[in-house]
């Protein structure tokens, strides 16, 4: 009797975060004896819809999707629904009524937590810079909103610099350099993810301000964890995409078995800084 095949459509395939998540998915699927079929989207909504349509055409039993946009790819969910294929959102979610389950992270809350941690770390006063994610990408919008609204509650903290852009280390270096020229008294730099943060941290170090300006990241990829260990980065948020991927497969599997599953399943996030870095570091 043929193995169950599940389809996977992640938002990007060139982002360490999703790369690890896919590893988790494959690992768990293998344990459960599922086939995994992937299609790539790379932040192009139409490409993601086309991909899901192709998955449906391919006759998969269930779909794990990390939708690029909360609304933009609803057509993908419709396509799955039309073929009665359960479609589970993982990481990012969709507004579509046809979304079967959402294995989510609480983006706004993470933003708030980063802000609180930062405020406390810089003594509740001074200038901070925000290196945002790609404009229009909802995850990063929500993170930024959470961060901004919390900082608004701290009167003596001022967001002196905001710039968006791709999630690359190079851009982290460049914009951090400019941010520090524009604000020599910069206390902290918020970065939309760890790649940007690693770039920013490098610029801070090069400018000899390692002790004056702290850098926060997000995702908890290994290079970032090392940077925290070495004191180059101040903190990051561990989402553990690997566990997330596993969880996604489990949720889908349970559903396919016909058992009842909550429409929203949250994955927990952990702030990682020098206090708890040692448990988090990957064992050598």
């Amino acid at each position, binding site marked *: 009797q043929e193995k169950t095949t599940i389809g996977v459509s992640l938002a990007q395939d060139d982002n360490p975060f999703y790369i690890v998540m896919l590893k988790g998915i494959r690992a768990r699927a293998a344990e459960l004896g599922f086939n995994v079929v992937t299609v790539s989207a790379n932040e192009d909504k139409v*490409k993601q819809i086309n991909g899901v349509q192709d998955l449906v055409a391919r006759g998969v039993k269930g779909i794990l999707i990390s939708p690029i946009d*909360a*609304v933009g790819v609803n057509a993908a969910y419709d396509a799955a629904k039309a073929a009665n294929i359960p479609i589970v959102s993982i990481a990012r979610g969709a507004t579509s009524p046809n979304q079967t389950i959402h294995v989510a992270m609480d983006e706004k809350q993470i933003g708030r937590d980063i802000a609180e941690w930062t405020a406390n770390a810089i003594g509740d006063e001074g200038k901070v810079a925000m290196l945002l994610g790609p*404009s*229009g990408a909802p995850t990063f919008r929500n993170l930024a909103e959470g961060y901004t609204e919390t900082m608004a509650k701290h009167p003596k903290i001022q967001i002196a610099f905001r710039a968006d852009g791709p999630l690359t280390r190079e851009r982290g270096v460049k914009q951090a350099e400019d941010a520090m020229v524009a604000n020599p008294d910069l206390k902290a730099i918020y970065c939309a993810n760890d790649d940007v943060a690693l770039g920013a941290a490098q610029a801070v170090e090069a400018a000899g301000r390692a002790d004056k300006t702290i850098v926060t990241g997000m995702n908890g990829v290994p290079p970032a964890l090392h940077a925290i260990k070495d004191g180059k980065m101040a903190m990051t948020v561990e989402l553990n995409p690997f566990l997330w991927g596993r969880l996604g497969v489990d949720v889908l599997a349970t559903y396919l078995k016909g058992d009842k599953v909550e429409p929203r399943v949250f994955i927990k996030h952990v702030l990682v800084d020098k206090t708890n870095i040692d448990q988090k570091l990957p064992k050598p």
Partner: protein
Amino acid sequence: MNMSPRLKRFTLSGQGALIALVILCLVTALLTHRFLTPLNLSNILVQSSIMAVIAVGMTFVIIGGGFDLSVGSTVALAGCFAAMTMVQFGLFAGVAAGIATGITVGLINGVIIAYLGVNPFITTLGTMVLVRGVVYLVTGGAPVGDEQLPAAFLAFGSGRFLGIHYLVWVPAILLVILSWIMAATPYGRRVYATGGNREAAYLSGVPVGRVIASTYVWCGGLAGLAGVMLAARLQSGQPTAGEFYELTAIAAVVLGGASLQGGEGTLYKSIIGVFIMVVLGNSLNLLNVDSYWQRVAIGVVIIAAAATDRLRSRH
């Protein structure tokens, strides 16, 4: 090289793109029985429809000897404007607003290029970035019109007529009308003449400035229409929509045998070019090719497809 390379192209090649497409389909069909299923074929048509509309507009510009990098941003802006207007003033106002947006961008490109004489690459690269900025400014970077778009509009995005999606009818009808315009009207011939030898056209009294500007207006307007179609398909106006469309569209047109030197190109062949791009992605997905390998395959295939055209034209 050869005293009349054009001659050879003219007589020998011509159908390189079609051949490449057929080969591509045959190979895929042999590798997976799912390729030729009605569902998949209709998917391919829908997946091609929007890019086809853009590619037709791009063909105008390229025949006229130009280049338009701003179509992607225009698609996004038109889609968002259309959605915003639609929520307020209803379906038709929205569609009109979307197309008008595209025409405006095209007009700006056209005037700067044809009358200020600024290089098309720089000009449209500039408007590409600029328009994207405007999109984010008007939308705040968030999708517009979710849940509030008229049902009729959503139906247009997913419904069918005579078993064919509305989205597919649009380029089909456009193709017929515009091919006729290019082939049979003085305007069409002027576009070819201007692109083929601007000076010759000018000296024989063709208003080259107006002709060139007009090609960008066509391209913009059709990009605007494509934006509206995309909004219908995405059930919202998406500020991030349309990235890299410009490259795909130009690639499709060039695969269709048009020359970036201008003066050559055929609308239906550009659409064949679009099919090559779409079928390629579709087949790689059906064959579950790893996404990294997909890139390798795409690169190889589009070069090969372009080469078919040249190789045939060797002997």
